[in-house]
């Protein structure tokens, strides 16, 4: 049997070196390179051009200059904002991965009661944008007048119990938002690990903790590292939370500096473009480390040619307590903020006082106009369309990177990862400069937004599907190749179903990202392609936070229903 397997592997490997196979792989890489270049490299290229040019693209009289980069990199002005940005990213990345890994382990590998229900509930904090979470936590933990502090004072406490306007407040709000991302990222890889390795460890005398430390975590290392890197950059490039919560306590980050250069007059997009390159170096270094880690991909394979079962660790005395612990976690991270948003959505204006006279339905009435209804429709169409196409593209990219040997495939990995390191607002400027000349009347339509979202979020699809693909043995693919299956057949018949759950995770993440994306959208939308996120963003300026709260509640409800529906179709819900 073993001999037969080895012989099969040899034939399969030789198939990889078959000139016809190599030619088809080369063509695939070329096609992908062209697509990813259009989606990612062109806008990023415009940004680099902007960073090195004295004026915006196409302005007469512009010339090459190092002035913008010198302002950012060669002065001490941005040292503190950069260090603060990196510190926020590092703290949020580390905390989110710890929380996400723990939650994913509880849901997938233990005898937690009603694990299916918890799996759905634990991702809810993702549905709210960081901006809305920041506003909700402001309502709860603003000094003196936040609900928590009002209750604290009424109980006889002195001063303020909580202060959201602090470094800890920023890290807390971002971790609440990003920990469920880590959870979603790690669900697939955690679930894919078969029981055999753990059982072997148990037979050899390892305890549960030892098995987790020496078996589970090392096998998950690439997925955990990729997740931490992803969340680090997402948190570091976030502008809404540090800008909203940090200004009062003098906390400056690179994205909050960029916000001022792009939103308020006099604008300086060239300087913003220069600052936008700061996180690229860090992220690309991280991708380099990740690629080194996954060079020997077979080390992390957990799905082979044989079906496997997932081991269920007995929680013992903690089993009845586990649901209560999770419920408390959810109450703090989403229950209270959602309650604050819901209550706020019925208020005329923000107030710590409870009074019937403050309540109104006017915030919800704003949503019934034609613009809002069009925005709902556009957001749904874009969310579903972009999530579907980007996940498919992400799978093909990740397959090419990990399963072919064509030179240049590594470049695909780096290029697709670039947008995550560039703050959305700056990337939006790059996209505006790049796409404003698109042919066939595409500019100003939904297509521009679709292209922008695919470029901006491709990296997530690549990483999430990559996490799942790495755990599937190449032998399945190779076996099909030996039996004459072409690439499309292999993708559709083997890879697609086996990484299906990873793809669903990717789809859900992308759908939520697209629904909440505003910083690039605000520069690219038109009256016909207006999205819900733009309506919410503008309503903050037009009416204050209350109407935005109402929109967020509806958006959360829609997301919840849709994600539940997708989970059901994917066969993941087991309530």
């Amino acid at each position, binding site marked *: 049997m073993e001999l037969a397997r080895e012989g099969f592997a040899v034939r399969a490997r030789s198939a990889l070196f078959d000139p016809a196979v190599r030619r088809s792989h080369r063509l695939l890489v070329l096609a992908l390179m062209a697509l990813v270049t259009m989606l990612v490299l062109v806008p990023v290229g415009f940004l680099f051009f902007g960073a090195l040019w004295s004026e915006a693209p196409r302005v007469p009289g512009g010339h090459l200059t190092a002035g913008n980069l010198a302002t950012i990199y060669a002065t001490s002005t941005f040292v503190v904002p950069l260090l603060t940005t990196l510190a926020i990213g590092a703290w949020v990345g580390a905390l989110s991965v710890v929380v996400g890994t723990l939650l994913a382990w509880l849901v997938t590998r233990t005898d937690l009661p009603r694990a299916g229900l918890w799996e759905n509930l634990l991702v809810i904090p993702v549905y709210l944008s960081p901006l809305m979470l920041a506003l909700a936590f402001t309502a709860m933990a603003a000094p003196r007048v936040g609900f928590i502090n009002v209750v604290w004072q009424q109980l006889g406490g002195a001063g303020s119990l909580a202060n959201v306007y602090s470094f800890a407040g920023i890290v807390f709000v971002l971790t609440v938002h990003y920990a469920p991302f880590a959870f979603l990222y790690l669900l697939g890889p955690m679930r894919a690990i078969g029981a055999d390795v753990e059982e072997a460890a148990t037979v050899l005398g390892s305890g549960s903790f030892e098995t987790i430390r020496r078996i589970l975590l090392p096998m998950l290392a690439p997925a955990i590292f990729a997740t931490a890197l992803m969340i680090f950059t997402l948190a570091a490039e976030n502008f809404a939370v540090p800008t909203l919560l940090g*200004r009062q306590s003098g906390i400056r980050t690179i994205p909050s500096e960029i916000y001022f250069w792009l939103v308020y007059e006099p604008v300086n997009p060239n300087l913003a473009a220069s600052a936008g390159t700061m996180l690229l170096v860090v992220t690309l270094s991280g991708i380099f480390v990740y690629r080194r880690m996954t060079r020997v991909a077979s080390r992390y394979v957990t799905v082979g040619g044989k079906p496997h079962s997932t081991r269920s660790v007995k929680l013992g005395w903690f089993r009845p307590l586990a649901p209560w612990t999770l419920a408390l976690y959810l109450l703090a991270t989403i229950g209270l903020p959602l309650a604050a948003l819901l209550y706020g959505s019925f208020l005329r204006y923000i107030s710590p006082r409870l009074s019937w006279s403050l309540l109104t339905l006017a915030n919800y009435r704003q949503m019934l106009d034609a613009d809002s209804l069009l925005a709902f429709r556009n957001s749904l169409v874009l969310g579903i369309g972009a999530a579907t196409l980007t996940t498919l593209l992400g799978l093909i990219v990740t397959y090419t990177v990990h399963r072919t040997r064509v030179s240049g495939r590594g470049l695909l990995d780096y290029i697709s990862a670039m947008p995550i390191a560039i703050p959305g607002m700056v990337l939006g400027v790059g996209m505006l400069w790049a796409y404003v000349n698109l042919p066939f009347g595409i500019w100003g339509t939904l297509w521009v937004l679709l292209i922008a979202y695919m470029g901006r979020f491709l990296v997530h699809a690549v990483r999430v599907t990559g996490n799942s693909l790495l755990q599937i043995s190449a032998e399945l693919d190779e076996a099909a190749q030996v039996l004459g299956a072409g690439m499309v057949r292999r993708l559709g018949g083997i890879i697609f179903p086996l990484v299906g759950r990873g793809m669903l995770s990717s789809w859900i993440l992308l759908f939520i990202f697209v629904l909440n994306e505003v910083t690039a959208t605000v520069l690219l939308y038109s009256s016909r392609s207006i999205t819900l996120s733009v309506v919410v963003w503008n309503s903050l300026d037009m009416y204050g936070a209350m109407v935005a709260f109402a929109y967020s509640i509806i958006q959360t409800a829609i997301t919840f229903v849709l994600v539940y529906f997708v989970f059901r179709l994917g066969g993941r819900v087991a309530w």
Partner: protein
Amino acid sequence: MWKYISRQEGNVKATWAWMAAPLAALLVAATGPAVQAAGGLDASKQWVAENVPGLPAGLVEAACKDGKLMLYHLVFRGKLADLIASFTKTFPCIKIDTYMASGGPLQTRFTSEWRAGQAGADVWMNSSPPFADKISKEGLLLNWTPPNDALVPAHWKRSGYWYGIGLATLGFAWNTKEVTPAEQKWLESVKTWDQIAKAPFKGRSCMVHVRAGGSAQLPYYYLLTTYGIQSWKDLKENLEPSIFSGAGPLADRLAAGECVYAPHVTADTAVATRWLQKAPIRWTFPEPGLAISYLMGISSKAAHPDAAKLFVAWSLSPHGQSAWVNSTGLAPMSKQATDRRKYAKESWYRLPGDYYPTDWDKMEKALKGMNTQFKDVFGQ
């Protein structure tokens, strides 16, 4: 193997088939412009003859041939529906389409489109006179003088290029529920800007960062050039203010009572919005009045130039100025506008008598130094 795989395949296929369906909708949703309405040409011509007499006779017809207008405008309270309805009631042959954003994105979007040869905006709005001057010199704004140019005071226009349509006026604001009667009395006694730093609200005040746009820069610039850096230090020492990234978040927190007093903020826009929502807020404009104008100009590459000209001429007419003021909440920039804003009827509401003649270019050039000084004084 195939059997093993196909066990999971059914669900996944169904899911992806379902997800692919909206792509078809995307194709449909991204299709062409709306159909044009027409009619009432004689009434439109008559209105022009009576209200903007110098306008060329053929402009209304040409504008109706354009049939539509793309207006790039700033973010206002409300959706300009009343304003657009007012215009299209007079000129039903023109459909107005809009793109809304704050000042910075409006500048970036408009200039990028113009330079790329895209017919984006016909009429472009902003609140930065130096930027409008800069792009006028570069040729981005059409050189055209409407016959009713004289209805706009000189300080709020650059004749032939851009025209103000209303003012974002700065005042000091407070939360009426959080102040004592003595504090209220003090607030009502303040008449000039040199008094604002003497307020009895140490640790309970809030201000907007100097970098948060023209309306944030103006009071700092005025204080600095009129009373010197000590006026900033007084604000810091006497008030110990919280600093906000924009007038919107500040107004929300003022309404909530998190801070009680804002020594300078765009009152008729951000603060008044919360007042209309019945928040316990009030404001006063010290003398001289500090304001920035919301301005508009016509793109020199406008796809609908005649409709744009007609819209600008209409906006400068007394009827148009009133429509802008009453639908956006901005203060009137001339006596031509009839002010029907709800808060303007309150007994405590009084617009400034005179406005400070800001040198916008000087103010913009001073910004870099002001940023450094702001950091030194306020630590941010």
